[in-house]
């Protein structure tokens, strides 16, 4: 008993002593600790940054509330085929006692510059009183949670209720939005000057422009109309109550739509968030490579020390524990720093994400929150990954024979064996994924396989470098340069980890660049085909006929086209049901697949077309039949799909029917938008329309303007991806830098020896730079095929499956050389800086440095 406790305390003491020795070691060479910490910090930063951003977005979807109010359980939406609900429905509901209700009107308005803004108008008294009830309820339930969310009340001094209810031109926005979009405190929308009341961002208005419905109906010129009515409470009970109020005749007035818990938006945006997550994991892996490299290097430098400790009687187990504790402390410190930096990173990323989400999916982001659990998870994950990677190292070190002096040659041959082993593992992984890839059509599995490929790629590197440099060696003359190349081979082992991280980052960067570049070219082609008319006009509904008549009158108008659009649902998800005039139908769609008799059956009204994203999402093929609620209402049977067309501009599915079907479906006969071709300068036609209808400039788009806007939005959408990618490359460059720095320091002695043998400083510099360049070049060379491979998989598997976009892959040499230059610059700096430091030191101190 006492001996075991003695043992335990003795064990603790030795662990403590070993730790103290390690601490002195790191104090002596802070660079080593710094390299490890750097890797961990970078890994955790990116992981947390993306995590915070993603989680906040998902939380925003699931907690989305009506503006200034609470979360609705049931929505009454316009009856099928209608654009709005009559406000009388709302009045009737309130009188009948369905008072947990909120009338909302949405619309789009334009400012003086022609920019479009979405506005929301609601019954603000109802919104605020429902919100304060929620606040009162939750303060009773869990008063402590109240502190995190701020709300505004009907009687808050910041809300000019008198003005708002009188329909005076006052709108409510978040402070950030007001700072950006209305720094003067005023906005002019649809010709009306509005006073902007800025509310604290935590109230959650996001980028919305909110106003009372009394003003909203005027501004949108939609008197008596509502977009939807939100109901609060139990969905079943509410449905019952509403049905009773309207004597079961509800379908004449509105449709019911039960509010999901954000699942709709979450699933719509899942692929987007998954891509971000994949990117962050990639960065995490790159960061870990750097950390691992640091650990390995520091152990290498302590090899002798560890042996000495063991010779002093420190048991292996104590040594191993001390090493693990050291690793854990580093992980702890690194993770914490990374956590804080990650939250900061997500500050910078969120606006970008918010842009993308609002543009593509119409989702509103709430102010960010963060959780301590992310830190614990990050620490756990990092420690797990790090110990998994380092344990074998620790083990071999701790168990090395006490009297051992491994020869250089032995070490080299062992490294070579190791490289071969890695290469074989990589080949195995690659073959496995090559076999599995054709079998999956789910982007999540594809992304998983992509992950496997990503892991396999860097494993290829050491052997490739080995072979490559051996080849070069053969063609080098004897002498200093032969020596340089031969020594490079020895550098592979210590440098390989940093180079692997670099390779990974390069590969990812090249592949993402390929994806984005290819997409941009595809989109441009698509837009060229899609936009055949010179001018696209979206007149307000009361001016459509007038606009059409005027266009028909003008002799220089060579063609008039129309587009009809209607919002429908397919399998509960929103889709657009649309048609165009015959010419547009034939010419504006790039068809991906079609039946032989496509156009004939289509114009006969016996078939329809769907967009590619919809076809992929629902696994529909040419020949399958689909039906929409509108079909059932008009008594139409399901129609077969006779063609699938490309669509890159819309997150929602699209169904195109012929004019004939459109009439059968009894959908509005007025076109939603009109397009025209003009024989002369298009601005002339714009001027005529502005004068004679009159239409505002904002209601017209000429072709160039649309293309410009579309590409602008495209670039913004991908900016987040590119930023993450560049960050990963940066992480890798930093990793390479620190590895080179350590290596060059370690090589002070051999270099000093060479100098002592008469090799000039310039020659030495050339030698070291040449070696490094050789290794970097081989890495970049390998990144070429692997980048192409990853790009191919991203384009043809992940993007296609996730977004439903087929993209023709275009290889971008320029982008390739750009990252190549970055890699070379990073390594050049990493080599030259320590060299310069070293050449300033006295020769003797370098000579006395330990050999590698």
């Amino acid at each position, binding site marked *: 008993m006492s001996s075991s406790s003695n043992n335990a305390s003795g064990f603790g003491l030795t662990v403590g002593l070993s730790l103290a020795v390690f601490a002195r070691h790191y104090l002596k060479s802070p660079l080593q600790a710094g390299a490890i910490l750097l890797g961990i910090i970078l890994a955790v930063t990116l992981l947390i940054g993306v995590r915070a951003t993603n989680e906040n977005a998902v939380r925003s979807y699931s907690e989305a509330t009506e503006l200034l109010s609470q979360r609705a359980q049931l929505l009454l939406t316009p009856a099928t085929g209608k654009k709005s609900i009559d*406000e009388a429905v709302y009045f009737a509901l309130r009188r*009948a006692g369905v008072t947990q209700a909120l009338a909302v009107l949405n619309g789009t308005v334009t400012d003086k510059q022609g920019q479009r803004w979405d506005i929301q108008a609601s019954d603000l*008294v109802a919104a605020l009183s429902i919100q304060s009830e929620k606040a009162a309820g939750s303060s009773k339930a869990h008063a402590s949670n109240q502190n995190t969310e701020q709300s505004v009340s009907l009687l808050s*001094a910041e809300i000019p209720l*008198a003005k708002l*209810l*009188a*329909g005076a031109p006052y709108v409510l926005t978040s402070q950030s939005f007001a700072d950006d979009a209305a720094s003067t405190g005023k906005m002019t929308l649809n010709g009306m000057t509005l006073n902007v009341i800025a509310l604290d961002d935590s109230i959650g208005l996001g980028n919305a422009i909110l106003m009372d419905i*009394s003003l909203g109906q005027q501004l949108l010129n939609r008197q008596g109309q509502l977009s939807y009515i939100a109901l609060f409470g139990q969905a079943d009970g509410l449905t019952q109550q509403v049905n009773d109020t309207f004597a079961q005749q509800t379908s004449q007035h509105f449709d019911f739509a039960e509010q999901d818990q954000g699942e709709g938006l979450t699933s719509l945006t899942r692929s987007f968030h998954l891509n971000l997550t994949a990117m962050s994991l990639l960065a995490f892996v790159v960061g870990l490579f750097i950390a691992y490299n640091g650990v390995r290097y520091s152990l290498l430098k302590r090899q002798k020390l560890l042996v000495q400790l063991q010779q002093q009687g420190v048991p292996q187990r104590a040594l191993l524990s001390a090493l693990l504790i050291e690793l854990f402390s580093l992980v702890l410190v690194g993770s914490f720093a990374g956590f804080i930096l990650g939250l900061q990173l997500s500050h910078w990323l969120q606006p970008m994400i918010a842009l993308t989400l609002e543009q593509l999916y119409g989702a509103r982001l709430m102010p960010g929150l963060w959780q301590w659990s992310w830190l614990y998870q990050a620490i756990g994950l990092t420690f797990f990954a790090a110990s998994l990677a380092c344990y074998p190292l620790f083990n071999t070190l701790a168990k090395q024979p006490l009297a051992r002096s491994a020869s250089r040659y032995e070490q080299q041959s062992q490294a070579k064996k190791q490289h071969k082993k890695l290469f074989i593992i990589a080949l195995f992984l690659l073959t496995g994924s090559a076999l599995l890839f054709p079998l999956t059509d789910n982007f999540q599995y594809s992304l998983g396989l992509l992950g496997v490929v990503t892991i396999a790629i860097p494993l290829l590197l050491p052997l490739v470098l080995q072979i490559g440099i051996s080849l070069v060696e053969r063609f080098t003359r004897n002498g200093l340069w032969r020596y340089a190349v031969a020594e490079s081979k020895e550098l592979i082992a210590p440098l390989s980890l940093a180079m692997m991280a670099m390779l990974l980052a390069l590969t990812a960067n090249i592949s993402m660049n390929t994806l984005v570049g290819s997409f941009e070219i595809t989109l441009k082609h698509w837009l060229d085909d899609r936009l055949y008319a010179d001018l696209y006009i979206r007149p307000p509904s009361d001016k459509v006929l007038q606009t059409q008549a005027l266009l028909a009158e003008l002799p220089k108008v060579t063609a008039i086209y129309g587009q009809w659009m209607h919002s429908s649902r397919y399998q509960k998800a929103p889709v657009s049901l649309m048609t165009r005039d015959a010419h547009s139908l034939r010419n504006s769609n790039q068809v991906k697949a079609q039946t032989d008799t496509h156009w004939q059956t289509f114009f006969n009204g016996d078939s329809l077309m769907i967009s590619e994203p919809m076809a992929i999402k629902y696994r529909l093929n040419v020949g399958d039949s689909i039906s929409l609620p509108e079909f059932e209402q008009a008594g139409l049977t399901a129609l077969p799909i006779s063609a699938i067309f490309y669509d890159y*501009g819309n997150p929602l599915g699209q169904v195109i029917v012929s004019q004939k079907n459109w009439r059968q479906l009894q959908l509005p006969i007025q076109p939603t938008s009109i397009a025209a071709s003009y024989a002369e300068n298009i601005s002339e036609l714009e001027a005529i329309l502005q004068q004679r209808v009159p239409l505002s400039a904002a209601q017209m788009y000429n072709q160039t303007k649309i293309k410009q806007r579309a590409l602008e939005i495209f670039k913004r959408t991908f900016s987040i991806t590119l930023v993450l990618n560049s960050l990963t490359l940066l992480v890798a460059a930093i990793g390479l830098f620190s590895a080179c720095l350590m290596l060059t320091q370690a090589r002070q002695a051999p270099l000093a020896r060479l100098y002592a043998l008469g090799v000039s400083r310039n020659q030495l510099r050339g030698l070291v730079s040449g070696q490094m360049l050789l290794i970097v070049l081989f890495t970049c060379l390998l990144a070429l095929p692997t980048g192409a491979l990853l790009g191919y998989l991203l384009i043809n598997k992940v993007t296609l499956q996730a977004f439903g976009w087929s993209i023709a892959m275009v290889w971008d040499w320029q982008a390739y050389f750009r990252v190549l230059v970055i890699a070379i610059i990073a390594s050049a700096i990493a080599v030259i800086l320590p060299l310069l430091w070293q050449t300033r030191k006295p020769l003797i101190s370098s000579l006395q440095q330990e050999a590698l």
Partner: protein
Amino acid sequence: MKLKSRYLSKVKLTLISRSIVLSIVPSIIRSLAVLSLSLLLTACFNESADNGDSFHASSGMGQLLDGNTQGYSPVLPGKQLSFPADHQAHDDFRQEWWYLTANLTTQNGEQLGLQWTQFRIALAPPSPTQTQFTSDWQTEQLYMSHTAMTSKQQHLAAEKWTRGNAHFAGTQVSPLRIQQDDWKWQSHNEQLFPATLSANATEFSYQLQLDSQAPFQLQGDNGYSRKNATGTVASYYYSQPFIKVSGTVERDGETLKVSGNAWLDREWSSQFLSKTQQGWDWFALRLDDGSALMLFQLRENGEKQQAFYSGRRMYPDGCGQQINSEQITMIATAWQQTESGRYPVAWNIAIPSQSIELSTQALNANASMPLSIPYWEGPVSISGSHSGLGYMELTGY
């Protein structure tokens, strides 16, 4: 075409920092207490009570009540109230209310108290723009209603806010209706009685038949009710203490037949407030001799200031007697800690000039109102020189 229609505003970063709570609740409580305070000033004032600090809240309802009265109609002495016209809303005055309290007995003999109040608050004085309103949504009137049901074991309260609008809230002339959503006083003709009062709250609902043959009691000087001695602050004010009630009440999924008596107060003004009071204790009591007693004490802010008392003894034939401050003694005898504060729920009341010596007992001592304002309002019984039932309101604790 989706792309072209989506334009993007610039987005600024929102800090990931916990939002700082700027609690507005206290100021609402404070400001709504002012509203209720003025609500209590149902009886006429004989004494000045405007020394010391002003009781003005800085925001919210305080602004609504205390703000600039310019542009609103003033309350002037000598005005003849006329019915049924004055049952309607007076939108040119800043505040107004219809206030009913009822002491009911269920078919099982259980005692039940019921309160219904509809408040009107003008957000802006009448102006030319008002006549240019083109939409039903545009309004300058805001309505708030409270209703509560009190039994020995339970006290349930509900509140609602709506804009003044022909569809939601307001009054209608013929037949007379005072309504907010589905809470409404629906008369059979242009007079207040007979009428049906119905309301549906989440936890309870009721439909009551109301009738009264007694003349209205004009408070103060023929309906001109001074709020201070100088008369710079006053309201128009009348009551109906003698209302017969029958009807049904739904509670816990159970429908109960009820009957009893109710009391209606009607009051409107543009300025109730000129005061230093901290709160008040108010009683509406029906005595077993067939008379009714309205009585209150206004408590002053400091210890030094003497509380101000007032009352009126009223009879079903329409006559009544004012009771002056010095004739009244009120002493709290028991206190109750409730969710929203500590209230004096039992009192001894002595008015020697009227030969009245009473003690009051609350039916449910926990009848505090957990709404935007914390106050206590519930049914009481009296014993002593007279017996009977009534209502008590306690604020400012």
